[in-house]
């Protein structure tokens, strides 16, 4: 049985289990139909031209974990930010770990998707938001809707400024051979509320894992979300991350994506403007090597006047790695006075690395400012020589220039421990210890 059939069969088995709200059950039924009709995306599709799921689809993944493994804090501590006090939602092989987590219901909900999908007290919010901004026509998103059992459910009430960042961490242990995971996060940030979230997927073994993650974020009027995705996974781990953000008036959603490792990473990051005077920020650093592939597909849907979007992605590709950047900005006729800025800069460190970059601007309004730019280059040889004459060896000089290249993206990181973690990861990736933070 192929992976697609296996997934559909798993849905049938799961649907007979009682539990989820009626609305959810209906959405799941529709979603599995969509997936069954469309199947996995292929390279024949424009949106998947450079990224093949072929090898993954041919792998025999198990759909739900059969066994569970208890992790101790020392197993995973290095993947968790601990120099700052945080809430934590930790999943191990797709299953909630109460031991590693720190949730709350005091004045807000930072808890589990499984609870939200089944418990009566969450019915109203689930009916209002679950699967309401995700792209139901996207086959992988539909697959997640049909099969997801767990993830983070975060509901911040009006005016609440959450003091502690929230970490959402998914571990896979490798105890279940070749696991496919379908985590689902729902984040609702009510009017004038503010929250910072850090998300990470981490494999703890060299067993193949395939994560098809979907996150829906709703920023209501004047709300602020500051979201960090740390993608520094094992060589055999693949991730499809689809994040859909719905924004109301005066809201600001900011997403930083740090893609440093994994076999294949595909980020679909979509911002939808539901009113005017909105800010959307998306920034990313991709730093990969070997045969890794990182694909960023962004979409900003400007549908109302006086809004700004700002995107800045930096890529550094070594070895035979491949990068894809496709940035789509859609400005509707009504969205006058839109400011949309997009920048994608890339450095190829080797002759065999590839980057495919494509700005895609569709503008139907006439009074707008939209700019985009992309560059592909190499490290500046004259700068390398300059640094060397100051006693900085070539390897360190390359690292320093790489840091410098990525620096604008780091400068907007709002959590200092995230910033220093990213600095450390970059230094580690480049095999140097420069002993300072930019």
């Amino acid at each position, binding site marked *: 049985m192929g992976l697609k059939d296996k997934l559909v069969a798993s849905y049938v088995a799961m649907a007979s289990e009682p539990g989820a709200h009626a609305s959810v059950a209906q959405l799941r039924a529709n979603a599995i139909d969509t997936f069954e009709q469309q199947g996995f995306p292929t390279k024949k599709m424009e949106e998947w031209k450079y990224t093949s799921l072929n090898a993954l689809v041919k792998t025999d993944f198990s759909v739900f974990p059969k066994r569970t493994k208890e992790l101790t804090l020392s197993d995973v501590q290095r993947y968790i930010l601990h120099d700052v006090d945080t809430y934590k939602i930790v999943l191990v092989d797709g299953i909630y770990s109460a031991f590693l987590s720190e949730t709350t219901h005091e004045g807000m909900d930072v808890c589990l998707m499984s609870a939200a999908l089944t418990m009566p007290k969450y019915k109203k919010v689930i009916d209002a938001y679950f699967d309401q901004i995700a792209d139901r026509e996207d086959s992988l998103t539909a697959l997640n809707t049909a099969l997801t059992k767990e993830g983070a459910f975060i509901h911040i009430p009006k005016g609440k400024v959450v003091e502690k960042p929230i970490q959402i961490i998914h571990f896979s242990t490798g105890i279940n051979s070749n696991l496919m995971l379908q985590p689902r996060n729902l984040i609702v940030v009510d009017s004038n509320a503010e929250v910072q979230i850090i998300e990470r997927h981490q494999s703890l073994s060299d067993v193949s894992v395939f994560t098809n993650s979907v996150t829906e974020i709703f920023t209501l009027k004047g709300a602020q979300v500051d979201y960090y995705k740390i993608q520094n996974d094992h060589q055999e781990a693949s991730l499809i991350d689809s994040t859909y953000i719905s924004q109301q008036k005066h809201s600001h959603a900011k997403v930083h994506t740090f893609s440093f490792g994994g076999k294949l990473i595909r980020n679909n990051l979509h911002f939808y403007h539901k009113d005017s005077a909105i800010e959307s920020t998306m920034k990313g650093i991709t730093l990969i090597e070997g045969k890794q592939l990182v694909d960023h597909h962004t979409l900003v849907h400007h549908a109302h006047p006086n809004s700004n979007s700002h995107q800045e992605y930096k890529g550094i590709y070594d070895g035979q790695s491949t990068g894809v950047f496709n940035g789509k900005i859609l400005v509707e006729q009504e969205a006058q006075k839109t400011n949309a800025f997009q920048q994608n800069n890339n450095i190829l460190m080797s002759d065999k690395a590839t980057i495919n970059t494509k700005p895609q601007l569709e503008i139907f309004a006439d009074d707008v400012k939209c700019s985009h730019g992309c560059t592909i280059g190499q490290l500046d040889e004259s*700068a390398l*020589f300059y*640094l*060397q*004459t100051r*006693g900085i060896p*070539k390897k360190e000089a390359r690292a320093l*220039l790489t840091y410098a290249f990525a*620096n604008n993206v780091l400068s907007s990181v709002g959590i200092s421990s995230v910033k220093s973690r990213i600095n450390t990861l970059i230094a580690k990736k480049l095999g140097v210890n420069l002993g300072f933070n930019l």
Partner: protein
Amino acid sequence: MLSIDNLHAQVEGKKILNGIHLDVKAGEVHAIMGPNGSGKSTLSTVIAGHEDYEVTKGNVLFQGTDIGELSADERAHLGVFLSFQYPVEIPGVTVTNFIKTAINETRKAQGLDEMPANVMLKKIKEKAKLLGIDTHFLSRSLNDGFSGGEKKRNEIFQMAMLEPKLAILDETDSGLDIDALRVVANGVNTLRSKDNAIIVITHYQRLLDYIVPDFVHVLHEGKIVKSGTKELALELEEKGYDWIKQAI
């Protein structure tokens, strides 16, 4: 300190240096002058160890060691410093972080521990003051948007921080107004000692009023065609380079 014997060098197949002989001892200041295209900048680049410049004949000894096979950073670790005619702009790295990295990488190569942060800070402040550099300047990106004068001042600041044994100043006077020239020259003079040596590469005599050389050499078509004392520079200023060319 530096002994150059019959040095021939080329870049991208083009011969630029055609048999240079030069001896520089500790405590000395040498000026190398010459018309455009005579090979002045190439000579400094070759001494500093640029990979693209190929030495085809002859050798360069630094403190008795042949440095021909050493990379630019290894030469820097021995105490060779090149002040660039056109310092490279590096957005995203602050002057302070750059100089910290340079010093600590050099110390690492010399088997020393990193310089303690407070010692580093004190030294940075002291040397910045020497060159009339404002402290906010130190948190700017390296050479990024600096004026010509700021770039040159920053080069000499780095020299002051790194304390090289041999400093080569390539056209340090270009782009400087007379006030900036005085500050930079004063900085260089403060750093002069009996233990280090300086090679000043310049097109004009002007800088040599402030940094007074012990010897002056004239470079022409990749060779030193005339050597003398500081009076030679004055003569060149008066008569131009054609006089030398005709004399050959």
